[in-house]
């Protein structure tokens, strides 16, 4: 189905329709809902996967203004359709999941943060020598992302910006494997509700599902 955020029609895929707690999946930068494969096959309720603007089967943002806050608006438009849901995000989707879990704490009982493309963004502080790259972009090719989404790999993600969202979130699960995580992630890990787990994506989603069954 398609939902609207502002002027952009977004593809929201309903992957499963079971009775039980709902799950919303948010893919990584340059990715799409197809990346989740069968990862959420054992989820105990309805599963939705969103294509962010400029990705997958969603429309591009005319004029190319992409930032995590707008992606959070994309995901919030999906929540307006779904209702209360746990969310899982990879890469830039993990950062969006943190923002949303803090801002919509009454509608998001838990958020799972996974690594992936666009996880670090432009780092914790502005780099005044590389803010405005001289990139020229062409049109979006069929089946590809809007080339302007690369802006999501350079937005600044300060620790002190991430911290209040981590404090407000009901429950955060962070998947780690020993590889480095960006500073905003470290802030999320220090949130009062945060738990670190060391598993693959499917096991992490099962873990998230188990917490939702308990809470449901």
């Amino acid at each position, binding site marked *: 189905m398609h939902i609207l955020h502002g002027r952009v029609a977004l593809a929201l895929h309903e992957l499963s329709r079971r009775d039980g707690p709902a799950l919303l999946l948010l893919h990584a930068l340059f990715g799409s809902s197809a990346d989740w494969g069968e990862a959420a096959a054992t989820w105990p309720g309805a599963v939705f996967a969103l294509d962010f603007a400029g990705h997958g089967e969603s429309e591009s*943002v005319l*004029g190319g203004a992409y930032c995590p*806050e707008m992606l959070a608006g994309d995901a919030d438009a999906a929540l307006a359709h779904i209702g209360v849901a746990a969310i899982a995000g990879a890469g830039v989707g993990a950062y969006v999941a943190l923002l949303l879990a803090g801002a919509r704490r009454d509608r998001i009982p838990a958020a799972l943060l996974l690594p992936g493309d666009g996880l670090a963004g432009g780092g914790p502080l502005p780099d005044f020598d590389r803010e*405005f790259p001289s990139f020229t972009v062409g049109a979006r090719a069929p089946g590809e992302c809007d080339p302007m989404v690369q*802006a999501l790999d350079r937005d*600044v993600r300060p620790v002190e910006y991430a911290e209040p*969202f981590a404090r407000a979130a009901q429950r955060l699960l962070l998947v780690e494997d020993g590889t480095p995580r960006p500073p905003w992630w470290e802030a999320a890990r220090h949130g009062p509700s945060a738990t670190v787990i060391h598993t693959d994506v499917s096991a992490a989603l099962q873990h998230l599902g188990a917490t939702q069954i308990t809470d449901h």
Partner: protein
Amino acid sequence: MSLRIVVDVTEPSFPGAVAPQRRTTVDSLGLRLNLLEWGDPEASPLVLTHGMWDHARSFAVFAPLLADRFRVIAVDARGHGDSAWAGAYSWFTDVLDVINVLRWVGRPAVLVGHSKGGGQATDAARAVPELVTKLVSIDGFGPPSLIDEQPLPVRFAEFLDQRRRQVQRGTWRPYASLDDLVERRRAQNPRLSRDWLRYLAFHGARVESDGWRWKADPLMAHAIGPWRPEWIGPSYATLRVPMLAITGSESDTWGPLPEPVLAERLQRVPQLARCTIRGAGHFVHIECPAETAQAVLDFVRS
């Protein structure tokens, strides 16, 4: 309810205001930007960028005062004036628009911006110093330090709520007459004459079947993000072209910044000149076009 629509479509005149000699459009990131030009097309270029909710015709008195010496090119920013509306807005893409206009001009230009357009002109000059000979910012030095009255997640939720409402609304309410728009604009330009306000409102709005509407896109009204005013000063340190910083002497809704805040930011500019226009508020070039144009010409000559 019946709304009496006054369709007074005759273009208002104002002493000193000159219609542009040429109009053109430039594609930037898939959007059509509207450009107005005054002066000899072979003369050395000078690019003007306006502020939030304003439009290129607001330079109609200022630009002709520079057109003896320059090919003056005033840009309608995306979502403003006769440029196209975007799907969403960001500072980053606004600055890329200015850079794309400079690339389109193809010769190093003097770059002059007002308010938000001044801040974006400054960022464009930092990004492509090879395309900018000199920079003039007219009271475009950012907001004072932010006072966060609500916790960030609460403000973020309000931002999301506004995004949801925007989907349902998406357009301005219509005004019954141009005079209603004039009154609205008077609130932020209290020192301007009625004729000048009428000129500015006329070109900032269009008449539709149910009344007058601002041309500027209401979608720009709401934004949130990690950006801090404390980043402005350090960004100025990377500026490689000379900057003239123009402010007005009078306090009004949008400026100027308290002098200690402004001085602290501007002291980071490697090559800085400053100029205060007596009697002007935030809209320096609209309130005192002759004095502001003279300051720009003196700076370019220096």
